[in-house]
């Protein structure tokens, strides 16, 4: 088998404060292959963004990577120095942030923000960069004239498309989408997902897609990892997860969201106060299907730790 685009091995990220260290991600391993859409799902606070940001080494001070490896096409990301990292970022991996609404600089024109990333990495004239930016906007179906606009003059959906276009600017091999549609309404959400699928088939990048919304996840991803409390509890191809999830937490997640299409179903969830503790390493249970062995989940009566 060829080298995966991204390989994360036993990644542990800690947020260290004076009093204690919180594990944002705990011995997480997964791989993303060329052209694949890999989904990472789980409730908020389970460590999805921690993983996304640590891949690009973007986490800030109290956070540190204490264990594990991140390999990008076999190259050790954790060993790169600042300059290598700068050259690698966006060129090979681009990211659309959780709050893409606010990821554009509010005081400079959109065009300027395309130009600076293109020229930083590719050099070339300003005119050439502007031309490239116009192509990219056309690709996400936004009038290229809007390059002269400031972020506040655009709607949320437009801003999101622009950020996605910007992420495609250098033809990266991997695109990280951290809850790219959470702040948007349902209709726009669907348009954006459509857009992403279209771009992916055109440009062929791999995607790490993060959301807490299982129906979106199942719709878009090829393979899915389910996270809980910093750990991956189940890792499987989308179809086997949909029809044969093994971990109770996955089952609860799947039950908590209505499917996007099809008949109405009764929603179910995890009983209030249910907690999983001391999650074990994954075991293979089927073709590409891995699950953390479960003991009985701990039921803490309404009491929160």
């Amino acid at each position: 088998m060829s080298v995966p685009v991204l390989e994360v091995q036993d990644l542990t990220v800690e947020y260290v404060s004076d009093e204690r260290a919180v594990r944002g991600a705990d011995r997480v391993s997964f791989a993303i292959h060329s052209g694949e859409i890999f989904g990472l799902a789980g409730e908020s606070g389970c460590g999805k963004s921690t993983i996304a940001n640590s891949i690009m080494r973007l986490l800030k001070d109290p956070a540190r990577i204490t264990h594990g490896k991140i390999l990008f096409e076999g190259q050790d990301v954790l060993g790169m120095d600042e300059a290598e990292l700068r050259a690698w970022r966006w060129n090979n991996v681009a990211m659309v942030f959780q709050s893409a609404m606010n990821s554009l600089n509010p005081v400079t024109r959109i065009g300027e923000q395309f130009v600076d990333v293109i020229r930083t990495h590719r050099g070339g004239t300003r005119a050439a960069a502007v031309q490239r930016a116009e192509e990219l906007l056309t690709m996400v179906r936004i009038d290229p004239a809007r390059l002269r606009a400031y972020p506040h003059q655009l709607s949320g959906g437009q801003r999101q498309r622009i950020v996605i276009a910007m992420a495609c600017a250098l033809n990266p091999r991997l695109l990280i989408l951290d809850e790219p549609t959470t702040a948007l309404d349902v209709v726009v959400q669907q348009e954006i997902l459509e857009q992403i699928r279209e771009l992916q088939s055109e440009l062929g990048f791999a995607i790490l897609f993060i959301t807490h919304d299982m129906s979106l996840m199942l719709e878009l991803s090829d393979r899915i990892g389910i996270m809980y409390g910093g750990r991956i509890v189940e890792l499987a191809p989308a179809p086997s997860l949909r029809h044969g999830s093994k971990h109770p937490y996955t089952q609860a997640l799947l039950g908590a969201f209505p499917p996007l299409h099809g008949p109405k179903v009764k929603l179910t969830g995890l009983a209030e106060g249910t907690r999983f503790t001391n999650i074990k390493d994954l075991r293979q249970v089927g073709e590409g299907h891995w699950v953390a062995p479960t003991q009985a989940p701990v039921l803490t009566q309404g009491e929160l730790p």
Partner: protein
Amino acid sequence: MTQNATDPQTLAASQPAEESGSARARVSATRLLRTLLRNGKAVAGLSILLAFIILALLAPALFPGDPSRITSAGASAPSMEHWLGTTSKGQDVLGLTLWGARSSLFVGFAAGILSTIVGVLVGLSGAYFGRGLDEVLSLVTNVFLLVPGLPLLVILAAFMPPGLGTVIVVLMITGWAGSARVMRSQAMSIRGKDYVAAALVSGERPLRIMVREMLPNMASVVMTTLLGCIIGSIGAQAGLEFLGLGDVNTISWGTNLFWATSDGSLMLGQWWIFVPSGLAIALVAFALALCNYAVDEITNPRLRRPKHATKSTAATTVVRKEEK
């Protein structure tokens, strides 16, 4: 309801909301005080302040009698007899400085506290009642913020009958607006909180909601504003008195400096006459500023200085611990 299961944080957030605002604030106020005493800046600031207050209280015991009486020949440099020398009139500088602390601290604290009270009243009621009242109060506040303070102080002090009371009132008039603006924005954000809404629904009176529910939750902001107002008042009082607009018959750090200039001590090179009072003003203001930064740091941990120098664009640190 089942949606909640996927998001335990909304669950967790909904529970403490039952607690009333004031109960939570009482806990946070004592915690603030305790953390304050563990903060180096706060301890340093409070110690300096305490030292000055004690010296001011002890002034009548240390230098009994009228401190402005003439005790020696004019303008003698510091000596064993007069530790800080004497003024050109022959008054003991140390005595004047200690006695000066009394009126300077009193006026500074009184005016600072009054300005804060007015600021709290204006800010809270504007934020609470909103609409027309808020617009009017904000407008007045902004006008007062914009009008340059010192010239306004000067004309107010010039027209009002001279005396300590006038100085305090005048400092309050020029000082309240800054605190009102801070209070309003803080109160606005608290106004939107659940426990205020709950109190409103349960039919509590506006005054009670403002005083019992909102105010206690603004403790740290009130504290920083108060400290800022005191610093401002002490400085402004000194400026006013330096221009001869205070009560020249009371002894304060500002009037000491006024006499030092009008007697020409500066030009004659008699540094010991003007250094102590200015240094005292600076030390008190610095001590208050230290307390202020301590409160800021405690309530906004982001402002705390990290233990090691970090560049803000630094990539994530990788620390590989040997696994046991």
